């Protein structure tokens, strides 16, 4: 009978310094690049892997393929000019960039945002979360060889993008939350169309549940893959669904309430097994929570009222010297903006904390050791890495 377990005696051993002794002349090892262009991945990032057989011995993350220097570019632009730039940092959900940049500027300049604008911002952020999760499920499915799931969820995501287009005029980049408020309130008949979209998404999710989450191929490959020890969460900077999958109920929406989240009723989805399957399940439940949250918001969001605070002339706007940090919960974890102003009309420094920064470099390089080559893409997408927020 053929044993399916690998023969461990042939694997390299660690030397005195803890590093594996790799004899490259032996012909047992090969070096392989995964990426920078790979269909299972949003954005461009590559993994330089050293493999033996089909098992990964070690890997290095290479980023920089999407570096456009946004943080530097924003330093020589006026605050309002930063808006079209900052959204480009995260294509899957650009609204968090707009909100956080606006929120830090409002805090430093002391601007009160009207109530209707807060509701509108909450709605836009939740819609953004919804479409990002739908795209992620497609990515997770296709990196495990289930390409059909992506066709369903990307279609459902397009319906959400249609609703975005109704409100903001844009599908991917919306630029709807300048400092001071939002650009408009809900268009006529939006509630009915959004409710229809949510109903459709719930139907799609029922199919996804059957085809992906109860699929024996997916379960066999993802259960036990990429275990994160709960003790690692703080030391390795793990946030968001990756931490919640490890049983640590951390959600910025609950812990550091912003916008209208304190007035909404929701539970944080927490898993306990901390593998790729649990993380996917946490994200699925989080998606359904988001659907519920949007329903609650639609019931309470005002149709009329003040939606823009009075801001100074944006072309001559100077903000006094100061610094602040604001965070929000995006689909990948804690997203934050650290803004420093120096009293001039330009920001001194804007630093973006993308959750992938810690997930995709230090954590992934540690987790990918001894993973089968075929599961590398699935592991990467299970951490929900997104490269441009690493290199900004």
């Amino acid at each position, binding site marked *: 009978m053929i044993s399916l377990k690998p023969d461990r005696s042939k694997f390299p051993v660690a030397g005195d310094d803890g590093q594996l002794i790799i004899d490259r002349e032996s012909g047992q090892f090969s070096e392989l690049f995964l990426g920078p262009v790979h269909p299972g991945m949003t954005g461009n990032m590559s993994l330089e892997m050293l493999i033996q057989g089909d098992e990964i011995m070690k890997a290095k993350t*290479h*980023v*920089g393929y999407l*570096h456009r*220097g946004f*943080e*530097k*570019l924003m*330093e*020589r632009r006026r605050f309002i000019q930063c808006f079209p730039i900052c959204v480009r940092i995260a294509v899957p959900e650009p609204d968090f960039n707009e909100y956080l940049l606006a929120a830090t500027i409002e*805090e430093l300049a002391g601007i009160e945002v009207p109530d209707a604008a807060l509701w509108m911002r909450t709605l836009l952020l939740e819609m953004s979360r919804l479409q990002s999760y739908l795209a992620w499920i497609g990515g997770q499915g296709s990196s495990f060889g289930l390409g059909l799931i992506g066709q369903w969820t990307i279609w459902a995501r397009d319906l959400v993008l249609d609703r975005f287009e109704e409100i903001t005029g844009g599908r991917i980049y919306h630029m709807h939350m300048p400092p001071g408020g939002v650009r408009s309130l809900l268009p006529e008949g939006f509630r009915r169309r959004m409710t229809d979209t949510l109903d459709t998404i719930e139907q799609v999710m029922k199919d996804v549940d059957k085809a992906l989450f109860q699929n024996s191929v997916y379960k066999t490959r993802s259960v036990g893959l990429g275990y994160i020890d709960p003790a690692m969460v*703080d*030391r*390795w*900077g793990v946030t968001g669904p990756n931490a919640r999958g490890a049983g640590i109920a*951390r959600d910025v929406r609950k*812990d*550091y309430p912003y916008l209208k989240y304190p007035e909404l009723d929701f539970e944080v989805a927490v898993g306990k097994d901390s593998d790729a399957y649990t993380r996917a399940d946490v994200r699925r439940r989080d998606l359904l929570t988001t659907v519920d949250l949007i329903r609650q918001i639609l019931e309470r969001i005002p149709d009329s009222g003040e939606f823009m605070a009075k801001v100074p002339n944006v072309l001559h706007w100077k903000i006094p010297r*100061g*610094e*602040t*940090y604001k*965070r929000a919960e995006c689909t990948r974890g*804690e997203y*934050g903006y*650290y803004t*420093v102003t120096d009293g001039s009309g330009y920001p*001194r*420094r804007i*630093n973006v*904390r993308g959750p992938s*920064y*810690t997930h995709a*470099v*230090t*954590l992934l390089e*540690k987790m990918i050791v001894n993973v089968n080559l075929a599961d590398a893409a699935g592991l990467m997408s299970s951490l929900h890495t997104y490269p441009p927020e*690493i*290199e900004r």
Partner: protein
Amino acid sequence: MQQILDALKQSVMIEDVRKQRDDLVFITVSEAQAVSAITHLRDRANFTHLVILTAVDWLEEGLFQLTYLLNNPAEKKDIGVRVMIDREKAQMESIHHLWPAAATYQRELREMFGISFPGSPRLNETFILDEGWDGPPPYRRDFDTLKYSEETYFPRPGRSTNDPAEYMKSMLYPEVDND
């Protein structure tokens, strides 16, 4: 928050405290005491989550400001530890032994600001500027992006620039003699 700062003052000289919000305070400590202050906050006061580590270039004052933003997940509080270091001797003690993820931040700061962190793993490997950058650290204030792009790139021949107002007038109302 005041209790945490009082306990920290027992061992570290805090030069400046600025309260931004109820849950966010920025403190300034000296370069020599920074790592012991951060270690104290992590081990004694439960600030176990390193949120960001970044630098701000105060070119006019000849200083780099390093900001270590630490978060206490249990009490839901943040402390920003600010350290001012000399711009000419840009060097700081590494904290990769406290958080492995800090090594990545330090690698980025080394590449983008030219701040050295002796002992930090893989510090001199390129991180973002992977394809042979030989200019100065690009995130320093004295690196002018506009000047660099004007010197490095040039407009493709055959392209022309139009005055937007005049161009739109001629596009929208071609029948009117625009001259």
